[in-house]
């Protein structure tokens, strides 16, 4: 799967452009603050219909403009499709093959994208939020319909939280809370099931890649952490509902006091281990980097299993953050695998690829092909 044409208008600081990306490597080179990450963000938007950065859609529109559009022609297994996303004052508009769509497609994603950026480099070190986001995006990439389950869970959660705060003001309607809790548990269980099923299929890839990267010294491990200590492996949706229901009942008094929901998949985490010990506290710098590199490469393998094709891989300025050895491993992997890659860098000397490469210069929001 790759982009054969890619254009945007009034997107962030980028001057209107239309390019024909190389089907293998595209290096986006430019100094800081010129628009390199914005370009990756535009590609990402075409896949997820939202940004990878926090913030509101509105911020994607160039200062002083009303509406931003991003467009691409994608070739997937020999079939060409177009996708267009417009951010307008009235909201987001998405068109697939020129036809407006109002709900997300259930079929496998029209465009699979994996992002490897600065946030990923601290996945093993920072708090659970980044790991949850990593997991949710990875699940979405292989099961786009997951986004509906996640959204429904989020709606149930926000509604319950509002009811908890209303209860604090003395407006407690137990029947209404009970109704939204049933929804919370039903959707929460489905979210957990998706995550657990994803991990089962993803873990073998991760374990293998981590071992390759580290020369097999120590084993890397990933566990799902949520709903107490007991393992959730092989849990059915009914099991998960029952378990979630039990912890929710237990937490209700605390939740009523605090005004928010303290249990459920929005609080869950991934446990990363090296040689059986928590990576966060035991891993060396080099091991941390090996871990995140393996997480990302394994994600590409897992998506390849799902769709029989490589996703578009977006690398945002990671070479400068990896040590020389990890960087060399990343480059070797990129060369050996297939698929279209966009890499941003301030200095292309970091990028040692032998495959066919196009270089795009990014300066003050202008993108130009480098000839030669």
């Amino acid at each position, binding site marked *: 799967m790759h982009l054969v044409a890619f254009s945007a208008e009034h997107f962030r600081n980028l001057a209107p452009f239309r390019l024909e990306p190389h089907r293998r490597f595209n290096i986006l080179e430019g100094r800081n603050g010129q628009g390199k990450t914005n370009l990756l963000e535009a590609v990402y938007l075409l896949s997820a219909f939202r940004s990878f950065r926090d913030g509101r859609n509105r911020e994607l529109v160039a200062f002083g403009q009303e509406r931003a559009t991003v467009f691409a022609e994608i070739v997937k297994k020999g079939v060409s499709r177009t996708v267009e996303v417009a951010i307008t004052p*009235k909201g987001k508009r998405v068109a697939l093959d020129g036809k407006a769509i109002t*709900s997300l497609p259930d079929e496998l994603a029209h465009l699979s994208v994996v992002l490897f950026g600065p946030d990923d480099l601290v996945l093993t070190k920072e708090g659970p939020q980044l790991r949850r986001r990593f997991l949710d995006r990875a699940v979405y990439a292989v099961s786009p319909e997951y986004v509906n389950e996640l959204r429904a869970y989020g709606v149930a959660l926000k*509604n319950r939280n509002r009811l908890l705060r209303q209860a604090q003001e003395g407006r407690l309607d137990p*029947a*209404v809370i*009970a*109704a*939204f809790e*049933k*929804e919370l548990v039903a959707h929460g269980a489905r979210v957990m099931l998706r995550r657990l099923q994803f991990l089962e299929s993803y873990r073998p890839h991760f374990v293998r890649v981590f071992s390759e990267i580290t020369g097999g010294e120590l084993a890397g491990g990933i566990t799902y952490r949520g709903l107490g200590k007991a393992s959730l492996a092989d849990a059915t949706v009914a099991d998960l509902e029952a378990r979630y229901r039990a912890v929710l009942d237990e937490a209700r008094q605390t939740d009523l006091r605090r005004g928010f929901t303290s249990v459920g998949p929005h609080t869950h985490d991934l446990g990363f281990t090296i040689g059986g010990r928590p990576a966060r506290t035991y891993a060396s710098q080099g091991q941390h980097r090996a871990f995140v590199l393996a997480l990302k490469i394994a994600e590409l393998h897992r998506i390849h299993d799902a769709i029989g094709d490589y996703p578009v891989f977006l690398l945002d300025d990671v070479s400068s953050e990896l040590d020389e050895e990890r960087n060399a491993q990343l480059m070797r992997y990129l060369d050996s695998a297939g698929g279209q890659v966009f890499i941003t860098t301030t200095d292309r000397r970091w990028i040692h690829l032998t495959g066919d490469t196009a270089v795009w210069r990014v300066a003050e929001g202008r993108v130009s092909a480098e000839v030669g």
Partner: protein
Amino acid sequence: MNALPPALDKLATLLSRLPGVGKRSAMRWAFHILGEPSTYAESLARALGELFEHVGFCERCHALAEDALCAVCQDGTRERTVCVVESAQDVIAIEQTGSYHGLYHVLHGVLAPLKGVGPDKLRLDGFEARLRDVDAVEVILATSTDVEGEATALYLGQRLGPTGVAVTRIATGIPMGGDLEYLDQSTLARALAGRRAMD
């Protein structure tokens, strides 16, 4: 310079408030109306005026009605089931399937704590009494299948427990977040036919 006559501008602005109508299509419509014989604009204006004069809501079921009671509530041959829906448009959508012969009850909304909508904001006053009055044998909960619609159905299922009336929920073949009014008739008929008892 704004060459647009204020009257035309005003019409376009009012039209653009309709759902799914952007500024540009509102302007196109306004010009179109201007291009038609003036009798068209006159009858359009009259239809709009009559809307509020003649169309109101049924005092029993809160569906659209031209009199105190809607056509369904006036029809003595309807079956003694009561189908609970979110909006008056849902009644029309279900009637068009031709496969339902019972009564309705329009909530005019769903439970939505985030929007400040609790049971007191829904048309639920005297609902239990109405079920007794019509001697209902079944209540079909046909709110939408998104989180708020489901929660509303769950809430009503609990609330109606003591009445002893059988409570059913439409089948959930409906796409997530799907509003009834957008469903094609056969999907809607199937959702109704496939209803299940609430637990």
